[in-house]
């Protein structure tokens, strides 16, 4: 189950980046933003992953109370997915946006040059 949750979380992170990237490119070119990418993740898994991501956010904000044991395991899967996502999409040193590709020489959000 952890592997499935991790894959679902990774798909959500990738979809979020794709949506933000698409919106930024559209704004830059004065075109209409493309439709957000359709996720093929199982709907039940997706709901669980979104819940786990919400908990992760609340933990960062230090406002999460008790946790269930399976939430702790799920959070580990989300953290692993985040680590894989961060490795594939290093942050822009100027604005911290995840780069579309590790080899990008310009940030899609702040348009700063990236020295690899």
């Amino acid at each position, binding site marked *: *189950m952890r592997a*499935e949750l991790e894959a679902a979380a990774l798909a959500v992170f990738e979809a979020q980046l794709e949506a933000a990237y698409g919106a930024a490119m559209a704004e830059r070119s004065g075109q209409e933003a493309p439709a957000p990418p359709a996720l093929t993740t*199982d*709907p*039940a*898994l997706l*709901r*669980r992953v*979104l*819940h786990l*991501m*919400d*908990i992760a*956010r*609340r933990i960062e904000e230090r*406002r*999460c*109370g*008790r946790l*269930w044991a*399976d*939430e702790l395991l799920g959070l580990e899967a989300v953290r692993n997915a985040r680590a894989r996502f961060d490795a594939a999409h290093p942050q822009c040193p100027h604005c911290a946006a995840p780069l579309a590709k590790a080899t990008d020489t310009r940030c899609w959000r702040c348009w700063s040059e990236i020295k690899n």
Partner: protein
Amino acid sequence: MPDEAAQSAEQNLLPLDSNERVIAFRDERGMPRRHIFAPPRLKLAEVREFFQQAHDEMLASARKPGAGRDLAKPRRALYRALVLRVEGYTLTGGRPFCELTNWIERLPPAHRLGAVNLLMGVTRAERAAEIDPEFDAVELEADWNGAQPDALTKFSGLLHRFEPFTEDDLHEFQHKTSRVTEVKGAREPKFLQAAPEKVMLDFYDQKIRAVEGYSVGGQLLADAEQIRAWMDPFHKISALGPLVREYLVPGGAAAGEEEEAE
């Protein structure tokens, strides 16, 4: 001693203690039809199963859009689980309709679905309930057994007062409704999840404090214990559902927190 149902109707209170739920309507040809059901509150296991089946169908439909799922199947199962008899239908030769061993199957499918839809029919009142200083209130309207043989009686002013949700309550709700279990041995990866309505039934019992507009034995319901025992499960869902949705925003945060953050 006055009849308790008549007394309740006089006071315009919805009688929760009806022994049977009678769904009366006129069909497409103007014929009066009556479908008599066991009260859903006495068939909670079947009602919970209905919600689970409906949720499973919805998930399956989302997994394979356009695969031709039968979304009415859970309603047909609920009809079969709750119906006791029908009136207003006649067999050729004049025999009583319910003498047939397969009388349920011989009913027009649209009548079965229509009757079960009416059985579950309860809506949130368009007029917003006044803001209660202490509780979260939701007002409903519903059709219920009435004096007329071919129509239902509309009851309004059905007020449900809940203890406000805490952040822990919302977390628990999200946790219980998002938990997934993998189906072992399935040909394709398949995951089960509890129907939100099943969790809502438990939350209703936990958070309800008072109701108005309902009666048991011709009297208003006195306390939360009586409400838990007598309230119709579809009314429980219809009262709690909008409240939960108001609290939750995409991502699962509580709406109140957004205001505090500003």
